C-alpha cells in the first residue's frame, strides 16, 4: 500500500448511509466491481462517479457509512479510485469493510472542520499526519494487525496467505 495519498477532496455531511453510497436495488444484480463503481454515491451526489479521479479523498462528517453491511458500499468507492476516507466517525461495519478492502478509513474530526470541497490534501499513512492548507492534522497510527491486512491487499488475500501457511 502506498504511504502517501494525495488528492482532491469530495466533502459530504453527517450520517451518510450505505443506501446513498450504493443503492440496495443493485446489491444482487451487480457483481462486477467496475460496474459497482459506476453507481458510487449515486443517490447522494450524481456527479461523483463520472468526475472522481484516482487518489481523490472523501471527507465525511460523523457516522459515515451507517446502515447496511453491504460491502459494495466500500468496493464501489475503492474501484472508483478513492484513495482514503476521512470522517469524524465511522459506522462499525463500514469501518471494518474499509480495512478489509485495504481502503484507509481515517478518523480525524479536526481535519473535517478545516477543509473544503476541492482542496488538495496529502495523507501520510505511516506517520499518521494529514497535510492540508499549510496545516498538519494528526490521527492515530493503524494497529499492526490492520497494517498487515492493508499490506496483503485486503482481508481475502490476507486470509488466503494465512491459510496457505497453516
Amino acid at each position, binding site marked *: 500500500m502506498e504511504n502517501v495519498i494525495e488528492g482532491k477532496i469530495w466533502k459530504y455531511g453527517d*450520517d451518510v*448511509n450505505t*443506501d*446513498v453510497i450504493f*443503492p*440496495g*436495488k443493485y*446489491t*444482487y*444484480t451487480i*457483481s462486477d466491481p467496475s460496474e459497482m463503481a459506476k453507481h458510487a454515491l*449515486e*443517490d*447522494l451526489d450524481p456527479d461523483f462517479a463520472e468526475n472522481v479521479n484516482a487518489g481523490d479523498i472523501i471527507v465525511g462528517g*460523523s*457516522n459515515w457509512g*451507517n*446502515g*447496511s*453491511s*453491504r*460491502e459494495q458500499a*466500500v468496493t464501489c468507492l475503492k474501484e472508483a479510485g478513492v484513495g482514503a476516507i476521512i470522517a469524524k*466517525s465511522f*459506522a*462499525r*461495519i463500514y469501518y*471494518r*469493510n474499509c480495512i*478489509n*478492502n485495504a481502503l484507509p478509513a481515517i478518523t480525524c474530526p479536526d481535519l473535517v472542520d478545516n477543509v473544503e470541497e476541492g482542496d488538495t490534501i496529502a495523507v501520510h499513512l505511516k506517520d499518521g499526519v494529514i497535510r492540508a492548507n499549510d496545516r498538519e492534522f494528526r490521527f492515530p497510527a493503524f494497529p499492526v*494487525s490492520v497494517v498487515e491486512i492493508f499490506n496483503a491487499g*485486503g*482481508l*481475502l488475500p490476507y*486470509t*488466503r496467505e*494465512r*491459510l*496457505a501457511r497453516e
Partner: protein
Amino acid sequence: MSNQTNGSSRSQTFVQKVLARGAGQEYAEIGEVVDVTPDRALSHDNSAAIRGYFESLGVTDVWDPEKLAITLDHAAPAPTVKHAENHSKIREFVKEQGISHFFEVGRGICHQVLSEEALILPGQIILGADSHTPHFGWMGAFGTGIGRSEMAATWAAGELWLRVPETIRVRLTGELSNGATSKDVALSLIGQFGADGALYKSVEFTGDGVSQFTVEDRMVLINMMAEFGAKNAYLEPDESVFDWLAARLAKRTGDSVESCRQRIEELVLYPDEDAEYDRTIDFDLSEIEPVVAKPHTVDNVVPLSEMEGTRVHQAYIGTCTNGRLSDIAAAAEVLRGKRISPNTRLMVVPASSEVLEQATDLGYTSDLVKAGAVISPPGCGACMGNHMGVLAPGEVCISSANRNFQGRMGTRDAEIYLANPAVVAASALAGYITNPENIKEEVEV
C-alpha cells in the same frame, strides 16, 4: 440477576462475558481484541457473492456446515433472471457443502426464521452478513453484523476477530400507554441520543419495565438498535423467553421441552451487578408517545401529532422490525370492516411463513384483504428497494421498517416515514398520517 464468571472475581458486562466464552477465555477486557468462534454464521441472498469470495481463498470445505444458516429472503421470490441466477448459485453451494439449515424462498426473513427455529440461544454468538444481526439480543444472545469478506473468512477459518466494546446500560421503568409500542421506545431512544448514540457499543436493556414486553415487543426494540449504531444489543431474558425458545427447540430437535429448557438455562448469561458501564440511561416508558421518524434519517423523530395530515401514497407493514403476528393483528384491528383510502395503497409482508399461517388461521389476512391491502409472500420485499412495493419519484410512504434513508425504497426522490404498525394501518385508512385514535369513529363500510 447475576452470575459471576467461574474462577474470576472481575465483574463483566454481558458482552465481555459472551465474547470471553466465544474466545475460550474466562475474562475479556473492554477494548481487547479476541478471536471468536461463532455458534452460528448467518447469510442470505448475499451468500452467492460470499461463495465467490470463499472459493477465492483456495479452500474447498466450509469449517462446519452445521454452523451455517442461509435464508433466501431479500429478493424472494426472484423478481428478475439475475436474482434467480443468484439464488440458483446458493442452492448449488448448499448442496455441495451439505448445509442443512437452509431456508427456501417463502420461509421468511433471516432474523425471524432463525429465531423461530431456535437456531440461536441465549448466551450464544451469531455473526451475520446482515446489519440487523444485533436482533438476536432480544433473547440475550450476542449478534453482530459483518461484511461479505468477513463472512467468507469465517466460513473458511471458523473464527473472526472482534473488539470487546464498551456498554451503554438502558434501565427501563414505567409502563407503556396511549398506543405507544416498543417501536416508539426504540425510535424515541434513537431520536433523543442520535443515530450514532451507541456507535461501536453494546447496549444492555434492563429494569422493571422489561417484563411488560412480549417476545415480539423485544424483537422490535432490539432489532432497531442497529439504527442506534450499536455493535450488539442485549435484553435481559426471562421466563417468557425461555418458554418460547424451549418449545421451538423441542419441536426442531425432537428432544423434550424440559431438556431443551435446561440447555437454554445453562447457556444464559447475565451481566454482573457491578460491571463497568460507559453510561447509564434511565428511560421512563410511561412518558413515551407514538412517534414518527421523518425523512431521511432514523433519528429525525417527532411526535406523531406533529405530522398529522401528511399525505401518504403507500403504507408498508412488514420487515424484520415489524412484520410479525402482533403487528399484523394491530393492523387488522384498525382496518377490520373498513376500507383503505382510494388515494393510497397498503402492502403487508409477513416476516415468515409461520406468521402468514397464523395470521390466516386467525382471520387477519382476510380482514386486511377485505380492507384493500396487498399481501406479499414472506420476505424483505421493498424495504431495501428490491421489489414488490418500491416507490415512484415524488411519492411518500409510511412504513413499519427500520430505515428511512434516501433512496432506500428504490428512488432518491421519495420520502419514507417510520412508525408503529397501528399508525401505518390508520394512515392507510385515512390516506394521510394519523393516529389510530382519530379513526375509531369512522363509519364502517
